């Protein structure tokens, strides 16, 4: 694996290898000294052109637990333009010694561009409404550790699918690992073109809720125009929110997931978010291990550039 840009082209074997590796890093993170040395001397650069706290902190924690150094770039309040400035930023950080780059950008495809410009591995930390592969990996890890496997599980993803890179990444990863995925959203929040997505879609949560093993909730992305897609918030909440009443209809053993940040009282009732069947904090915790697996695989997979060119 040279870069990690998308879950669409990841085979089952690669995914499972990353999950197996993640399991080992979960064990490392549980130790009294939660740190191991394999990336000593390497520098991971995070280039986040979009605001993010949890994803960036998670990557930095993962890098440090592998003994890598971290360089952080964030544009602050200035709005960087695409094109030259993205390229110059990437080349600059590379020249400063970045050995792996994690890129988040609001433009779809930006991490692919960076991967063409630099000679080091690139991880997509989220590009527009397109892909967020490490989120899919940590979600699959959370589910696999809870259920033992994804094969045959019914997973429903509810909410603003159209603007969600998490949904797209999850659909491909989950289905590759053998789960049956259903998207649940008003038509206006489903992707315009679902052709080729390995899943089904419905507009009726109550129709499918009882057969789900995992209900995965997404927030409505008002900053990307999600709230204009339905008549009113009360109507959205009444049809797609996981209320206490709907929560009670879930099958025994079914679990609730959410990538955060949660809007309590909208897509998820506060009591549901705090229930022990909500795996939200497990997702956050396991995210560090999943990102360690990605950084470790990229760093060791092809030998690092500095040595290859030496």
């Amino acid at each position, binding site marked *: 694996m040279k870069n990690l840009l998308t879950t669409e082209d990841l085979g089952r074997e690669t995914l499972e290898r990353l999950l197996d590796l993640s399991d080992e890093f979960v064990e490392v993170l549980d*130790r009294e000294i939660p740190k191991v040395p394999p990336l000593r001397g390497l520098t991971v650069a995070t280039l986040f052109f979009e605001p993010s706290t949890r994803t960036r902190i998670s990557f930095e924690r993962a890098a440090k637990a592998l003994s890598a150094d971290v360089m952080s770039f964030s544009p602050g309040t200035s709005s960087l333009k695409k094109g030259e400035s993205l390229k110059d930023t990437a080349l600059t950080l590379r020249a400063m010694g970045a050995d792996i780059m994690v890129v988040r950008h609001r433009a779809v495809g930006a991490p692919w561009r960076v991967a063409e410009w630099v000679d080091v591995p690139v991880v997509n930390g989220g590009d527009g409404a397109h892909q967020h592969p490490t989120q899919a990996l940590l979600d699959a890890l959370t589910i696999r550790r809870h259920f033992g496997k994804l094969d045959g599980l019914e997973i429903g993803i509810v909410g603003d699918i159209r603007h969600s890179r998490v949904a797209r990444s999850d659909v491909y990863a989950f289905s590759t690992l053998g789960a049956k995925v259903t998207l649940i959203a008003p038509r206006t929040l489903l992707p315009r073109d679902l052709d080729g997505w390995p899943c089904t879609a419905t507009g009726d949560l109550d129709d499918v809720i009882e057969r789900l093993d995992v209900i995965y909730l997404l927030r409505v992305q008002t900053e990307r125009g999600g709230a204009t897609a339905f008549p009113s918030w009360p109507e959205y909440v009444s049809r797609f929110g996981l209320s206490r009443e709907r929560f009670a209809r879930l099958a025994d053993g079914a679990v609730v997931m959410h990538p955060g940040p949660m809007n309590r009282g909208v897509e998820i009732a506060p009591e549901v978010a705090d229930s022990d069947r909500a795996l939200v904090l497990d997702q956050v915790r396991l995210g560090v291990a999943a990102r360690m697996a990605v950084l*470790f695989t990229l760093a*060791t997979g092809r*030998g690092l550039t500095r040595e290859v060119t030496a």
Partner: protein
Amino acid sequence: MRQVMDGDDVQRAISRIAHEILERHHGADGVVLVGIHTRGVPLAKAIADAIERFEHVRVPVGELDIGLYRDDLRRRPTPALARTLIPVDLTEERVILVDDVLYTGRTVRAALDAVSDLGRPQAIELAVLVDRGHRQLPIRPDYVGKNLPTSTAERVTVRLHDVDGDCGVWIDDEETR
């Protein structure tokens, strides 16, 4: 391929190592065996079995994967990691690392680093089934099943029941393969 130890020889060596451990430590108190993946793990279990036969006590057995501590990680493709599983707190215990073949000493160096990250044992010792020489680091074993003088061109193969189905030690000349 020339066989230098058969299954019985391996079992005798394991029994002797178990006796030497008991002798040196005046029993099995505070001893923890830690096998280095892959073949150190069944060897550690076999030594623990032997100790149990002789003294009727079960010493804790751990498994250690040193993949994250290798010094050649960046030159070789991604290794699969095996499980690290240490059943007891190693602090103040007497840890005996167990491996099948001692050669350059680099694996043991990595294992020492890994153990140091897991706790602070009172002492760390080393037991190996075969010592084939050619050390590149200042490391020596405390318990040796068999000293096997080799040239660097030769290859030592250890096979154990739990991993390989049969048991023995073979030596062969790389150039004739």
